[in-house]
Structures are given as C-alpha cells and as structure tokens.
C-alpha cells in the first residue's frame, strides 16, 4: 500500500514522543477522556453522586452553627475583629471552608485515582496505553474539581439564603485568580499523594493524615494568629494559607491580612514547586513499581 495513501495515514498509529503540539493535544485528549469516564461512572450511582454533592454543605454547617453558638445569634465576634479586622463569623467561615473541599479534591480524588483503577482491575490496562500516567491523574482531578465547584455553588446558595452572606462582589475576579493559582499547587500535592498510593498498601491512612494536618494548618475557621508560631510557619508550605488570606482580603469588608507579602507571587512559587516535586516523585515511584513488578499487588 502506498504510504501517501489517505486510508493508510488514517490507520497509522503515531506513538507520541517528545514535547510538541501534537503530543500535547493527544495528552489533553487523554485527560479529557479520563474526566468523561469518571463522570460516566459517577452518574451510574445517582445516590452516591447526590451524597457527594451535598457533602461540602454537611461539613460546613457544624462550623457555622458552632461559631454562632459561641458568639451569639448576631454572629459577630469582638475577638475575631481584633485579630483580623472583621467580626463577621459567617463570612469568615464560609470563605475559609469553600477551599477545604478542594483540598479533598487533591488528596482524595487525585490521590486515589490510581488506587481506584487498581480496585477496578483496570490499572495494568491503563499502564500499557501509550499515554502519560499523569494524564489519568489529571483527568480525575478535572472531574473532581468540577464536581467540587457544583457542591460549592449549592453550599453558597444554602448559606446565602439561611444565614445571609456579606461579600464584596468586586473581589470575586481576583479571588478566582488566587483560587486558580492555589489549585495549581494543590494538583502538585495531589500528584505526590497519588504516587504514594502506588506503593503503600493502606494509602488512605496517609491521605487522611495529611488532610487532617493540612486542615489544622489552614486558617479555615480561625486566623493563623491562634496557631503556635512553628505551625504558622509550616502553614506557608501549603498553598491554602496564603490563598485563604488573599481571597478573604478581596472578599470580606475590613479584613486585615494576617501576613505581609504578595499572595500571587507566593502562590506562583508554591505552584511551580509542588508541581515539579509531584512530577519528580511520581516518575521515581512509577519506575520503582514497574521495576519491582508490584503494580498489581494490593
């Protein structure tokens, strides 16, 4: 058959090598398909889908109700106002908690993407496809991020209607920019966790422990000032602390940022560092598990 023949060219399977536009397009398609696959699986279990959609609200409510019991029904804390300039507990907790769900995205959805394929018995099939393993993880991250955004919208509507929310509308765009930078760094963190899922038998213990530590180090329901000095310093390694401070300064009236410095630059640096670290760890673990032949082991 003539190689210039159109039919032959259509049948030809190109193996992607090197970093070029064609390969990037192929990888993006793989990411998109992994995302679609996850949505299809999710819609196959409607009860699970709805439960996961309302879970951000379920975990936010205790923080709000407890906060209101502590300060009284008016929802104003003198002490919080002294620490950060605003005493509005509902706005403070809401802006903090919306980010927590996205930490879950990084830790659980990305961290367990590989592990889940192992449970389903499809990991080996995915490993032999001529595409990057990271594409699979990123596809699941994309699905989980969109899922979390839907949950956050529900969260916002319910909290707005029940408790009332006083946020600055003009701060939404810069807050979204901060959010995007934070997600970049969280994706890097998620890649590290997914690499751990390849070698650890009980990976959920590590994921849950890291999530718990990150939750304490992030100023979700309290300002950083109440943490011990060492914990305050450690919180700047993770993207959530600078992102929360930055977003609150754009969204909440009279909010006084607890830390100096440019939040955008800080997050850019953290994003680059976590992505590089994540990809490096993933590559090392990937080579290790294939050499040792432990990919299929539970």
């Amino acid at each position, binding site marked *: 058959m003539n190689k210039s023949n159109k039919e032959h060219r259509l049948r030809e399977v190109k193996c992607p090598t090197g970093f070029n536009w064609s390969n990037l397009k192929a990888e993006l398609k793989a990411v998109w398909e992994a995302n679609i696959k996850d949505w299809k699986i999710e819609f196959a*279990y409607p*009860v*699970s889908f709805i*439960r996961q959609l*309302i*879970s951000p609200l*379920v975990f936010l*409510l*205790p*923080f709000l*109700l*407890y*906060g*209101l*019991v*502590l*300060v*009284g029904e008016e929802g104003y*804390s*003198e*002490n*919080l106002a*002294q*620490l950060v300039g605003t005493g509005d*507990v509902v706005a403070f*907790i809401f802006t903090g908690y919306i980010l927590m769900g996205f930490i879950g995205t990084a830790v659980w959805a990305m961290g367990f993407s590989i592990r889940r394929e192992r449970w389903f018995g499809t990991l080996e099939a995915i490993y032999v496809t001529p595409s990057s393993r990271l594409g699979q993880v990123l596809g699941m991250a994309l699905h989980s991020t969109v899922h979390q955004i839907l949950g956050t919208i529900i969260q916002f509507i319910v909290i707005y209607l029940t408790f009332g929310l006083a946020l600055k509308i003009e701060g939404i765009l810069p807050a979204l920019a901060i959010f995007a930078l934070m997600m970049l760094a969280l994706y890097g963190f998620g890649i590290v966790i997914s690499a751990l899922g390849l070698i650890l038998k*009980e990976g959920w*213990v590590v994921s*849950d*422990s890291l999530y*718990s*530590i990150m*939750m*304490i180090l992030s100023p*979700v*329901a*309290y*300002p950083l*000032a*109440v*943490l011990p000095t060492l914990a305050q310093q450690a919180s700047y390694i993770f993207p959530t602390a600078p992102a929360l401070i930055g977003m609150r300064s754009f969204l909440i009236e009279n909010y006084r940022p607890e830390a100096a410095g440019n939040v955008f630059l800080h997050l850019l640096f953290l994003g680059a560092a976590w992505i590089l670290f994540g990809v490096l760890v993933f590559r090392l673990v990937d080579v290790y598990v294939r050499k040792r032949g432990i990919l299929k082991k539970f």
Partner: protein
Amino acid sequence: MMKSTYQQSVLRSNLSVVWNELVKNIKSLLAYPAILVFWAIFPIFWFIPFILQGQAFVGGFESASFAQITGSGEYVPFIVIGAVLNSYVNTLLYGMGENIRKESYQGTLDYVLAAPCNKAYVLIGKALSESVSSTIFAASQLTISVILFGMKITLGVMLPVFFIVILLMLGLYGMSLILAAFSLMYKQSYDLSQTIGYVFYIFAPVRYPVESLPTWAQIFGKLIPLTYALIIVRSFMLLGTDFSAVYLEVLALLIIDIALLLAGFYLFSWMEEKTKKSGTISHH
C-alpha cells in the same frame, strides 16, 4: 438430664463462635498497625479546628453565649466528649456493614454463612470486636485530650458514663445490623452508612448543642441514640448531675435501642434468607 447436657453443649458452641469471631477480627486489626495508630490518634485532629475556632472567636476557653444554652461555658470538654462518642459511630456504624462486605471481598462470606451455627452469634462476635476496638480508640483519644487540653475528669463519673456508652453501642449495633442486612442484599452499603453518618453529624449534638438547631431538626435529632448519649454524658461530666436528672433521656435511649435491635435482627435474618434463595451472597 440429656437435654440439659445438650443445651450446655449448644451454649458452649455458640460462645465459641462469638469468641473466635472476636479473636479473628482483633487479629485482623492488629495485622495493620498503621490503621490502629490512625484511629487511636487522628480523630483528635478532626476536632482541634473547633477548639482553635473557639479561641479565635471568644479569646479564651469559656463563652457566655455557650453557657446560656448548654449550662457550661467551657466549650473544649463539650467538643471532646462529642468527638469521642461520635468515634463510636464512625467505627461501629461503618465497621459492621463493611465487616460483612469485607468477608465478601475476601471470598469468605459463603463459608461464614454456610457454617453450621446461628449467624446471630457470628454477628455478636463481630459487634463485640468492633466495641472492643472502638473503646480502645475512644479511651486513647480521651487520654490524649486530657493531656493536651487539661480536661478534668472525675473517676467517679466514669462508671455511669461507661453504662451509657454500652447503651449507645446497643443502639448502634441495631443500626449496624440493618446496614449489614442491606449490605447482604444490595452490596453497596457504603453510601447508606455514609448518609446515616451525615444525619448523625448534623442532627445530633456532636459539635453544638441540639438547641441551636431549628425545632423540626431538634425533633428529628431526638430519634437518634447518639443525641441522648451525648446529653446524658455531658450532664454527668460537665454539669455534675446524676441519673435522677436524666432518667427520661436514659429511658428514651433504652427504648430506641430495643426498637433498633429488634428491627436489625429481623431484617438481617430476612435478607439472609432472601440472598440464599437468590444465590447472590458472593456477588460483588
């Protein structure tokens, strides 16, 4: 005489089933030390944010607004007691349903159900092992909280508290049996137990007093055994009351326990028969 000897032998066999099931589950737990350490320590990390939130909002360890509703302004012991009792929900509620599912994953469910013994004793063994592990985890969390937050506990109240914890566990056994029954038939009990966990978390006074909820939610919360257990234990430990002050709550807890246990055993036997007939026991 012969009948009596036979009855003694049956009783011994049944107790042996319970004991061996208990030992098997404890051995399985000890085989994963990371999980053991996780449940003994990490649930503390889930309530530390609430304590830090309290410090940020009131600037100390007491809140006047909190005292108006609960009778005590100290929010730290309130949160710790809520979290420790809620850990029984986490381990018992999810544990029992998943325990049956685990047998199915491991390929041992067929053998367990085909064994010539009453399955109720297998379940009692599983429930006891979950209780032992839950109590070890709860004791560990409470001890760490006493050390970390300087909580004061009078040893005299621990006996009535333990009695209430047993009543709570009985109610949770009932719920777990219902979940285990659904797990036999519909396999994916995970979503159901998670949803029940959400209901407990929101409507029971785990993190906040039940009075802070709207009236309809308070009524709903009164159907949950954890609500009564938390009210009674907090009354003993924080307000220093005795049984006479909370006898109505104890009675309500007892009634809920009986109803849940009866429903649990009935549903489990029914589902077991149904799955045996349909031949879907070992399906995943």
